[in-house]
């Protein structure tokens, strides 16, 4: 198994600092397993050993720093009870879930999560994505590639959901854009309300003086409709008169 580089003893730091660093590097080597996790994932014993290693080494360095004359017997103090208890509770919870720590991040688990996120409507993606992870004969995906693909599945599932939400949000807008009557209501409704408001507050003379306001509002709303139709690729039906004319022309 490859190991991470150890701290350089001559790096200028003081002795205790180096010991702290060594302790964390030792623990880190075991915890993150640069050469890959043990086959079958992390066991409770593995995790206990790693935590104990980190704790004991740092504690040892602290003791030596505070008391440089400490005897060798004090170099490996036992772990405090509360620390052991909390650690065991966490490890026990992990095992109750039926998995050790590492497999939660495996490609299979991430794919399962992605399928869950994608929702019932896209349950067919489960087979498709599992076939993807299986690769093809002679070109199976490595574990690293599988994990990369599985992270992509999660992102794909999130995008599906976002697109579904956007589709739902566009439905009322599409209804307005597709219907000439609703589009006209969308444009003329606020314009007429504005006209009434002007007449009510300023009288008919006000209508002449402030005519630019309803005109600008109408132009803006008409622009919104035209832009929306272009953006959504929506075409309203031909007006009745034009349709009748074209039908007549065809006969």
């Amino acid at each position, binding site marked *: 198994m490859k190991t991470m580089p150890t701290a350089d003893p001559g790096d200028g730091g003081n002795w205790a600092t180096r010991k702290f660093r060594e302790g964390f590097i030792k623990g880190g080597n075991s915890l993150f397993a640069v050469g890959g996790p043990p086959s079958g994932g992390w066991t409770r014993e593995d995790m206990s050993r790693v935590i104990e290693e980190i704790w004991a080494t740092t504690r040892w360095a602290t003791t030596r720093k505070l008391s440089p004359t400490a005897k060798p017997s004090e170099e490996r103090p036992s772990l405090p009870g509360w620390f052991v208890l909390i650690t065991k509770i966490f490890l026990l919870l992990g095992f109750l879930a039926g998995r050790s720590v590492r497999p939660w991040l495996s490609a299979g688990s991430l794919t399962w999560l992605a399928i869950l996120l994608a929702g019932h409507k896209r349950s067919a993606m489960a087979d498709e994505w599992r076939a993807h992870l299986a690769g093809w004969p002679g070109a199976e995906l490595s574990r690293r590639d599988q994990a990369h693909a599985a992270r*992509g599945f999660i992102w794909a599932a999130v995008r*599906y959901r976002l*697109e579904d939400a956007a589709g739902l949000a566009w*439905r009322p807008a599409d209804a307005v854009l*597709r*219907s000439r009557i*609703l589009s006209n209501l969308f444009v003329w409704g606020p314009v007429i309300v504005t006209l009434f408001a002007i007449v009510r507050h300023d009288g008919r003379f006000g209508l002449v003086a402030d005519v630019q306001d309803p005109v600008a509002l109408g132009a803006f709303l008409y622009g919104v409709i035209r832009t929306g139709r272009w953006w959504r690729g929506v075409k309203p039906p031909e007006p*009745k008169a034009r349709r009748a004319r074209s039908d007549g022309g065809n006969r």
Partner: protein
Amino acid sequence: MEFDIGYSVLMSAPKIRLTAVIMDILDVLTNSPSDDPAWGLRLCEVTGYGTGTVYPALDRLMKAGWITDYWEDPPPEDRPPRRFYEMTSTGREAYQEAVAAREGRRAAWLRPELRPGGTA
């Protein structure tokens, strides 16, 4: 008076924007032989895009009716079946139009006299 806000709105096909991802996927689908059709992993490998990009794009193309899918038949026993994709006639037409437009733009760029407002 007519209200045309019925079912057609709810089932309307989304507009496809011809991004580089979509064009690359359509390139692969167009050039896939019928006896060896494209599927998810192959599309990712050939286009170089990740799964988080390719699958949502395939979903959009399916909704727009540009591509269609079918499952591997018979399903193999040792692994899940693959889902194959192929282009529909609508997709083929749209793709050919897009390619022609792209070629036109490229040609216009290489020959300035073809650009809008360019001098002969």
